[in-house]
């Protein structure tokens, strides 16, 4: 099993700093919901490098991102299944 980034949306939605979306080396992996003002992760694209964790902890100082086992996630967002459709995002992300 492997680790993926997971964003605590309660913390994230309070700040709107968007730094993790800019520093992630993978394209369209940390997505940003403008309506709910939160970032969330497309787990099928996350390679588990933990750069976003360092950015959130040290640069932004928000401590909203943790690495967790993919099997511990109840519900996941996968870009290959859903496609990039911001209009269908309901504001509730896994």
């Amino acid at each position: 099993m492997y680790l993926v980034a997971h964003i605590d949306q309660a913390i994230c939605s309070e700040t709107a700093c968007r730094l993790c979306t800019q520093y992630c080396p993978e394209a369209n992996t940390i997505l940003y919901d403008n309506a709910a003002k939160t970032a969330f992760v497309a787990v099928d694209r996350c390679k588990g490098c933990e750069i976003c964790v360092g950015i959130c902890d040290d640069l932004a100082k928000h401590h909203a991102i943790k690495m967790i086992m993919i099997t511990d996630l109840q519900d996941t967002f996968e870009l290959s299944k859903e496609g990039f459709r911001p209009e269908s995002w309901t504001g509730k992300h896994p």
Partner: protein
Amino acid sequence: MSLKNMTITPGWEKYMTKEYIDLVERGPYGKQKKVSEMGSFKEILEEHPMCAGCAMTLFIRLTMVGLPNPEHTILIGTAGCGRLALTQTSIPFIYGNYGDTNAVASGLKRGLEVRFKDQAKDVVVMAGDGGLADIGFSAVMHSWFRKERFTTIMLDNEVYGNTGGQESGMTERGALLKMAPKGKLFDKMDMIGLAKTSGVAYIARLTPTNPTRVASVVRKAVMIAREVGPTFIQAYTSCNIEYAIPTPKVLDDARDIESKRYGFMEIISDEAKAYLDSIDTAKKAKKE
């Protein structure tokens, strides 16, 4: 390639992949997207096989946001890590042979200028330090001497990362690598100095520690290459495999190298500066 060519013929949408439809409808074509909007538009770069946490991937991703007209751009690369991501962009990519990237780009740019008189087409060479400073060195230098109007971007990871860690001309003196067990005996090549001597119109050296700056430098370089002359960007994009940098520390390393020896540097010719100013003035006049 143009925005018109990308658009799907009515009735054929159901045969196209999800990714392609997303790109046409929610992609950056025809709109200048900003770094701060990343994550809320479909990016030109798709999934790719580069290593987890690679700084080069981050730099390439930011470069794609910085391109002023991605629908009118052609990328040229060669063997090396960068082409693994560059081939996964929805921008035409030419896989030059080792050594001839800048010669291919010269011919291509001249051909495009003849073929498309009313539409500016951008040519961007993106290859590694080995591809440009070692193997492609003569073609790079001569394209600069001839003042060919395209952008050369060096993805400087200071090693031959793809082939097991041989030293390159851009490796630092004393660096220990798998295939350089005694440490490199010579200094890092001064490509910035060479570019200056050859009269390159815009030269920049940077690390991917500031995403907005990367995008703005790329945008400036491509715009200047359109009208004024050759442009060159040298970007530190560490190889976390060959230099054994743990992936969570990749950006710490970039910041460290930036403060110790790499820095951020821009050299811009008077003509290029005047051209950029004229663009700004035109933009302001349009707004008013």
